[in-house]
C-alpha cells in the first residue's frame, strides 16, 4: 500500500481520537465533530485509489450517493425529541455494513489464516445482531412496534438459537472455509437473534440498549478492519467499542438498572406491592399564585422531565426563566441523568430552546442546593423526584438516585392529571406539605405563569 494512503489513514485515526476528546467538553464539542468529519472525508477520498480497489467505481459512487443522501435528508429533518431513534438507525446501518463486508470476504472464499477467519466470522455475528437489534430499537422508539413481545421460555429459545449460531460459526472457522449454505443460515439466525433479543425490552430501557449496540458495532468494525488489514478501521472501531461500553455502563448506572437486568428481565414485572398508603392530600394551586411565589423568590430550581419535551414547553420555560432573571431571581436547571429519553437528551432539548449550558446542573452538582431554594418547579418529571427512592425500601425504585426536590422550601408540580406516572408508582412528593399541584398542559401552564408574572 502506498505510503500516502497509510499516512491518510493514520491522520484520520488521530483526528477521530482528537475529535472525540474535544467532544467531551461543551466548549470545544462543536470543533470536535468537525475535526472527526475531516478525518472521515480524508479516509474516504484516499480509498478510491486504494491498491485493492480496482473495479465497480460507478456502483461505489452510486451507493455513497443514495445512502449518504438519504441519511443527510433524514438527519436534517428529524426533530430533537426523536434523536435517540435516529442514532439507533444510523448505528444499525454501520453494523449491517460491517456484517456485509464480512459476507463479501467469506463468499470470496480466499484462503484466510485461522485468526483472520475467526475475527471475520465473529465480526459478522456481532454486526448482524447490532443491525437487526438497532432496527427493532428504532421501530419501538418511533412507535412502529407498540407491544412488548414476551412469552415464557423466551430466554431458553434465545440461548438455543445463539448456541446454534456460534456452532455454525465454529464449523466455518475450523473447516477453514465458508460453505454457502452454512453461511446463509448463519446470517439468518444472527438476524433473528437481534430481533428476539430486542423485542421484549421496554421503551424506558431502550437508550441503554442502543448504546450497547453502538459499542457492538464498533467492535464489529474493528474486527473487520483486522480482516481487511486496515488500521484506521481497527483503531476507530475498538475506540468506539470501549468508549461505547463505558457509556453503556454509565447510562445503566444512572438509571439504577444493571445491564443484565435490562437485557434479561422485563421492567414492571416486580413491584406494585408494599408501597403502602400515601399520607396527606393533593393541594392544587392557581397559576397566578404560583407566578407570584416564583417572582418574589431568591432562588428557583426548575426540574424538567420528558413530559416537558412532549408538551413542547421548553421554549416557554426559557421565556419564563428570562423573565425571572430580569427580576433578579437566580434560576437554575436540575437535570436528572434519565430526564430525557437517554442521559444528556434533556440538555440537548433545553439547548435547542436557547437555555445556556452553564445554568444547567446535573444531579451531583445541584442536590445540595435544594434546601436553599425557595421554589422548585417540577415540570413533566415524576419518578426522578420520588422521595420513596430514598426513604422506602419496599418501593420498586428504591436506591435509584433522585433529585431531592422535596427539600426545597416550596415545590410546584406542573402535571396533566392526578394519575400516577409512566411507571405507575405513587409519588409521596405530590402529597407533601410544601407541595402545590398546578394541573394542566405543560406549555399552557408555562404561558400562564409568564402572564401572571408580567402582570405584577
Amino acid at each position, binding site marked *: 500500500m502506498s505510503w500516502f494512503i497509510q499516512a491518510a489513514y493514520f491522520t484520520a485515526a488521530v483526528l477521530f481520537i482528537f475529535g*472525540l476528546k474535544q*467532544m*467531551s*467538553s*461543551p*466548549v470545544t*464539542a462543536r470543533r*470536535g*465533530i468537525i475535526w*472527526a*468529519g475531516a478525518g*472521515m472525508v480524508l*479516509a474516504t477520498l484516499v*480509498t478510491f485509489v486504494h491498491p*485493492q*480497489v*480496482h*473495479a*465497480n467505481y460507478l456502483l*461505489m459512487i452510486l*451507493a*455513497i450517493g*443514495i*445512502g449518504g443522501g438519504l*441519511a*443527510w435528508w433524514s*438527519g*436534517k429533518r428529524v426533530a430533537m425529541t426523536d*434523536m435517540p431513534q435516529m442514532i439507533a438507525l444510523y448505528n444499525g*446501518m454501520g453494523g449491517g455494513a460491517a456484517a*456485509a*463486508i464480512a459476507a*463479501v470476504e467469506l*463468499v470470496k472464499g480466499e484462503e484466510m489464516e485461522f485468526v483472520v477467519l475467526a475475527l471475520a466470522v465473529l465480526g459478522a455475528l456481532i454486526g448482524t445482531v447490532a443491525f437487526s437489534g438497532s432496527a427493532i430499537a428504532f421501530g419501538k422508539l418511533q412507535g412502529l412496534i407498540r407491544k412488548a413481545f414476551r412469552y415464557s421460555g423466551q430466554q431458553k429459545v434465545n440461548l438455543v438459537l445463539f448456541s446454534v449460531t456460534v456452532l455454525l460459526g465454529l464449523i466455518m472457522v475450523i473447516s477453514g472455509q465458508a460453505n454457502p449454505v452454512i453461511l446463509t443460515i448463519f446470517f439468518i439466525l444472527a438476524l433473528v437473534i437481534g430481533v428476539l433479543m430486542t423485542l421484549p425490552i421496554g421503551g424506558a430501557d431502550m437508550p441503554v440498549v442502543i448504546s450497547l449496540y*453502538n459499542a457492538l*458495532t*464498533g467492535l464489529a468494525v474493528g474486527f*473487520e478492519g483486522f480482516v*481487511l*488489514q486496515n488500521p484506521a*478501521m*481497527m483503531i*476507530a*472501531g*475498538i*475506540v*468506539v*467499542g470501549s*468508549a*461505547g461500553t*463505558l*457509556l453503556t455502563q454509565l447510562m445503566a448506572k444512572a438509571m439504577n438498572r444493571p445491564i443484565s437486568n435490562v437485557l434479561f428481565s422485563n421492567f414492571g414485572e416486580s413491584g406494585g406491592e408494599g408501597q403502602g398508603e400515601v399520607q396527606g392530600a393533593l393541594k392544587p394551586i392557581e397559576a397566578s399564585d404560583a407566578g407570584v411565589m416564583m417572582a418574589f423568590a431568591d432562588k428557583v430550581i426548575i426540574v424538567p422531565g420528558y413530559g416537558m419535551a412532549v408538551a413542547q414547553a421548553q421554549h416557554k420555560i426559557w421565556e419564563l426563566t428570562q423573565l425571572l432573571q430580569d427580576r433578579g431571581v437566580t434560576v437554575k436547571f436540575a437535570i436528572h*441523568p434519565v430526564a*430525557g429519553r437517554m*442521559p*444528556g437528551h434533556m440538555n*440537548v432539548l433545553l439547548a435547542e430552546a436557547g437555555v*445556556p*449550558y452553564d445554568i444547567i446542573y446535573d*444531579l451531583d452538582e445541584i442536590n445540595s442546593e435544594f434546601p436553599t431554594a425557595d421554589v422548585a418547579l417540577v415540570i413533566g418529571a415524576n419518578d426522578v423526584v420520588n422521595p420513596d427512592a430514598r426513604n422506602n425500601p419496599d418501593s420498586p425504585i428504591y436506591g435509584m438516585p433522585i433529585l431531592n426536590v422535596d427539600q426545597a422550601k416550596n415545590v410546584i408540580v406542573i402535571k396533566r392529571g392526578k394519575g400516577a406516572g409512566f411507571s405507575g408508582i405513587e409519588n409521596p412528593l405530590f402529597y407533601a406539605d410544601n407541595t402545590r399541584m398546578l394541573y394542566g398542559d405543560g406549555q399552557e401552564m408555562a404561558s400562564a405563569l409568564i402572564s401572571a408574572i408580567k402582570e405584577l
Partner: protein
Amino acid sequence: MEGFVALYIFMLAAFTGYEVISKVPVILHTPLMSGSNFVHGIVLVGAMVALGHADTTTEMVIGFFAVLLAAGNAVGGYVVTERMLEMFKSSKGDKS
C-alpha cells in the same frame, strides 16, 4: 499484519476509548454517543474496499449494500451530531 501487532493496536485503542470518555459530563452523553456512532462510520472505507475488489454478482450486490449502509452511518451520524452540538452555547455570549 503480525497477529501480535494487531493485539497491541486493539489493546491501546481500547484504553484510549475508555480514557477519552471517562471524564465526560452527563450533559454530553447523548451527543457523544452520536459522535462515537459517527466515528464507526469509518466502516465506509472497508465497505469501499470490499466492493472495489468484488468479482461475482453476489459479491457486488452485497458490497453495494455494504457501501450504502456505511455511507448512511457516516453521513447520518455526522449530521445529527453536528446539529446537536451546534446548539450548546454559554450564557456568557461566546457563540464559537
